[in-house]
């Protein structure tokens, strides 16, 4: 029967090849992408090919490829020629597993037309995104593309829009992660921007709306690709990217690690992994970490590391708006989101950038059932014209909004200062904090003693005495504790034990916000 089939097929074959042979040939062509020369060039740039990247990202033998036979449909500018057709076109798509958990992936192939986006390319990407949303699994995009397929014109632009729409539809439904592993310019940048996390590879990836040449012609600025949109720029200055990795291999291995923190969809619980760190482990170092003088800085990461499982913290945006620390970790094996003011940088005050950084992170956690633990040491919002003109009111409101609307378990630990409006903002009891703790070193007050005394006792002599009185009255956890605004004052070294216990209790927390079409966060 098979023989007949092959024979038959051979009769109809244009190139006198059997269908089976054509399948084999196409598959082989698809696997080599733009050909050995371009693969060698890709390697020479210090980059891996689209398929090598997927091989490294996914569990061995788990990749199931879709649309290997899709080809572009452009017939202008000689594109219809056979040698300009590549099976699969400039992107590899499909699904696979990371540590056994389902993930949908697309990996742009720079060796085929510079990874440029054709209608077919976009269609392939949309297909995996649609299915990911249907079954409830994250989408990881590995971006390495020169931009639109210019030969295809509006077809290519339509393709981008199709992807953008799906990015928006999938937002809050399944986690979406972009890893920029080469150029990503023009309209293309908005897909990563719409996803939940954008990671970059140092020295080999760029993100910008317009490249250095256009910048030069329009604004007459001289700027290199790296300065304009390299990993350093986006992880330290613009805040566009959430983290950067040394190279492709490093980035992909870290991405596997990161993936383990995430639930598969908004209907799935945050994952719980096997934990070797005792849940009730005391952390003696925390009893002495907060300095005696309230003006002295300390490193909030010391507290965070001490409390978490195995001191393991996947920090998000570690080099941007460093006055707030956010990231993922585990408590007794359960994924949690950590938010903490960083007294080491700008006294840990809230400003425009840190508010936005914190707000976006909190909203991600809330969307994906990840409990939020907040460590508070905040002297207030940063004063000054730069901040006011920059819209600190509008941006600060984002963080307030994000904490207030979140319905996931919220636990707060006030380690030292919780002053003024910033106290309210930082996941306070008043914003439906489930468990709010204060350390003995906590000071919950409208402002610091000095400022308060200048107002309350204006013109009075003996300011020092008044200050001492104020400190005695307010610079401690009691005013908040007697009102029930903190649930308990705890010994710092017991923090881990408390948090693990509370998280277990709160795992079944159910809370809903009133029905609405969508909320209106002050963007």
């Amino acid at each position, binding site marked *: 029967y098979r023989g007949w089939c092959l024979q038959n097929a051979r009769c109809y074959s244009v190139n006198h090849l059997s269908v089976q042979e054509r399948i084999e040939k196409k598959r082989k062509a698809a696997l080599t992408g733009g050909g050995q020369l371009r693969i060698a060039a890709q*390697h020479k*740039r*210090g*980059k*891996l090919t689209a398929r*090598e990247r997927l*091989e*490294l990202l996914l*569990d*061995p033998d788990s990749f199931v490829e879709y649309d290997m036979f899709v080809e572009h449909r452009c017939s202008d500018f000689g594109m219809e020629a056979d040698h300009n057709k590549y099976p699969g076109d400039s992107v590899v798509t499909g699904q696979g*597993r990371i*540590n*056994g*958990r*389902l993930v949908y992936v697309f990996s742009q192939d720079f060796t085929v037309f510079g990874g440029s986006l054709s209608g077919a390319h976009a269609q392939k990407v949309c297909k995996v995104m649609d299915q990911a949303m249907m079954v409830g699994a994250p989408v990881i995009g590995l971006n390495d593309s020169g931009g639109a397929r210019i030969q295809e014109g509006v077809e290519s632009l339509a393709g981008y829009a199709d992807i953008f729409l799906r990015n928006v539809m999938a937002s809050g439904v399944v986690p979406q992660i972009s890893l920029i592993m080469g150029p990503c310019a023009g309209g293309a940048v908005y897909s990563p921007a719409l996803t939940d996390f954008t990671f970059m590879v140092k*020295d*080999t990836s760029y993100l910008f709306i317009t490249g250095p040449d256009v910048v030069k012609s329009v604004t007459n600025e001289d700027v290199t690709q790296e300065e304009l949109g390299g990993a350093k720029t986006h992880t330290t200055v613009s805040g566009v990217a959430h983290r950067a*990795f*040394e*190279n*492709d*291999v*490093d980035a992909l*291995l*870290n991405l*596997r*690690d*990161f993936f*383990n923190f995430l639930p*598969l969809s908004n209907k*799935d619980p945050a*994952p*719980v*992994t*096997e*934990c*070797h*760190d*005792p849940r009730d482990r005391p*952390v*003696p*170092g*925390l*009893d*002495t*970490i907060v300095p*005696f003088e309230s003006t002295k800085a300390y*490193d909030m990461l*010391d507290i965070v*590391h*001490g409390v978490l*499982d*195995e*001191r393991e913290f996947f920090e998000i945006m570690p080099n941007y708006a460093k006055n707030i620390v956010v990231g993922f970790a585990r408590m007794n*094996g359960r994924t949690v989101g950590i938010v903490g003011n960083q007294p080491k940088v700008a006294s840990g005050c809230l400003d425009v950038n840190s508010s936005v950084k914190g707000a976006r992170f909190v909203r991600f956690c809330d969307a994906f059932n990840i409990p939020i633990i907040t460590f508070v040491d905040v002297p207030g919002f940063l004063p000054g014209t730069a901040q006011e003109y920059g819209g600190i009111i509008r941006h600060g409101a984002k963080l307030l909004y994000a904490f207030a609307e979140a319905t996931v378990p919220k636990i707060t630990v006030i380690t030292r200062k919780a002053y003024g409006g910033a106290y309210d903002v930082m996941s306070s009891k008043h914003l439906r904090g489930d468990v709010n703790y204060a350390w003995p070193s906590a000071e919950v007050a409208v402002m610091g003693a000095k400022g308060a005394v200048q107002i309350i006792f204006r013109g009075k002599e003996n300011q020092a005495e008044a200050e001492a009185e104020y400190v005695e009255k307010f610079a401690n956890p009691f005013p908040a504790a007697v009102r029930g605004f903190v649930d308990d004052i705890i010994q710092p070294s017991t923090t881990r034990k408390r948090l693990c216990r509370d998280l277990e209790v709160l795992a079944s927390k159910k809370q809903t916000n009133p029905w609405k079409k969508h909320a209106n966060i002050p963007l």
Partner: protein
Amino acid sequence: MAAYRNTPGFQRVLHAVKHVCFSKQRCGVIICRYSTVYDPNEKVSLIIRVIKTCKKMGIKTVAVHSDVDSSAVHVKVADEAVCVGPAPTSKSYLNMDAIMNAIKQTGAQAVHPGYGFLSENKEFAKRLAAEGVTFIGPDTHAIQAMGDKIESKLIAKAAKVNTIPGFDGVVKDAEEAVKIAGEIGYPVMIKASAGGGGKGMRIAWNDEETREGFRFSSQEALSSFGDDRLLIEKFIDNPRHIEIQVLADKHGDALWLNERECSIQRRNQKVVEEAPSTFLDPDTRRAMGEQAVSLANAVKYSSAGTVEFLVDSKKNFYFLEMNTRLQVEHPITECITGLDLVQQMIRIAKGYKLQHKQSDIPINGWAVESRVYAEDPYKSFGLPSIGRLSQYQEPLDLPNVRVDSGIQEGSDISIYYDPMISKLVTYGKTREEALKKMEDALDNYVIRGVTHNIPLLREIIVHPRFVSGDISTKFLPEVYPDGFKGHMLTAGERRELLATAAALYVAAQLRSQKFLGDLRVSVVPAESRQWELCVELDKGVHMLGVSRSGNNYTVEIDGEKVEVSGEWNLASALLPITINGKHRTLQCLLRTAAGEISLQYLGTSFKLRVLSNLAASLSKHMPEKVPEDTSSILRSPMPGSVVAVSVKPGDNVAEGQEICVIEAMKMQNSMTAAKTAKVKSVHCKAGDTVGEGDLLVELE
């Protein structure tokens, strides 16, 4: 407080000694103006040590502290604590009124002064006497006499103690130093009259070195002791440092409690000590002991003290100095004699006669002490490092291990203090047993957050020369002429290390596939799997095959099989495993998602990278990151302060020329140019505080 002062049984139980411990620590900049240089960690550990004995004797203790020390360890372990003022020492620990008040307020009946501070203050002694409060320690006369090297040498000579040939007086200037050196004969040692602990000490082999040594020593002496008087003596080449512990009461009786050998030193500071010494025969021991006792008698010494000797290869011994305090290494004497020296000091202070006769003093077994420092042993056998002890775990669950420390998890090690973390003491029936225990103790000692010298300690105690007792104060420079480089792995050890890293990697990979209660995870057929791994270590790349059965891993490396098994607890700092049937404790210092694994193995930390074969083969396409050219950049090798900068931009410097001087922990280090070049820029000035790795000077 008042409560137990009125308890009727109180006086009866404790021979009326209530005990105030004075400490100074963690209180900003220390100005060392006293006869000895000490550090607060050591001080706190001493105070804790004293408190322990007091508890055993039923004596209540009171710790005094400044504002900022209220959470220090000694404050927690004492029965009571009294704050004597704000952080500056002049307002707290040196504030005599505040301390007298503390004594009155708590009804303390005795005072242990710690070192320095008020311990040598005659006025303080007088005020204590007026209040009828006992002072624990030798009296000020003896401290002063022995604290001054010139005076002590004269007294020693008079007491018929062997002394080193040298010049019995203060050297006026560099030229006089050269003249005297010529008379005594090279090599000579130049040292601070007020010195101790290796500070302000230089050895010179010729005239030029004498001049330079004189300059450095006087600067160091001035900054460390506030006294730049120097003296010169014959330098005994290749000597051993052996000291005798003495105990003397107020009735003119004195005992010697055998010796401690402290020859393993770096920059004249002790690193590893042991008691007894492998070198002394009973006759020499007795001769040294008797001279030590006669010196103690000569100064009417009471309390515990130490007489230090240099011993040459022919067992000639020379008096070096007498330490009038309880020394860091006192625990090893306690181990072999069974005496509690603090208890003896308290008894003596109360005026009791000595409990023991010389013939009662035994040598039971062997004790070894390692000084664990927050130092980078790869730089000059130990340059200070700083940081916060993010994890800290002493190996106290091992038998016959004692750790005296004054720090805890979360403590900060800063540039203002001598960086001692602890004294680690092990004891055994034989020297071999004590050393084996020390190996285990070092392997099980968890210190994270600061660089420490455990790699060096671990290497010293297993070195064939040390094991055979063939040591001198030159041990380190002789054994490691090019500096300490860490443990050199044998082929077998290398395989063990690689196998452990591979097994740890697989254990971690397997765990990351375990999700509890998640039904949407596909089952990975892990049990049947083999792993093909590529492990990098020191630029060497190894292909490994790993197979697993439960917690046992078989790792094949270059045709050889290594069996590794253990609990594989990925949260624990310690990694106790069995390799080819041998028990080992490793420590996992780092494990990243990208396959980097740092393991502490045989004391030294090794960086490895474990990758799947696939990841390894793809890694070769990764661009190499260009490292910074360091020959034209001078960075601070340690945290400290800049004493002097001798160049300015535009100057031409020759290779080896001094560029600036950095001081840390009262040690001055001359920084020199790595090549002949023009100075491009200077990033520091005298008086600056710099961190490790900070840019100091750039050359063109």
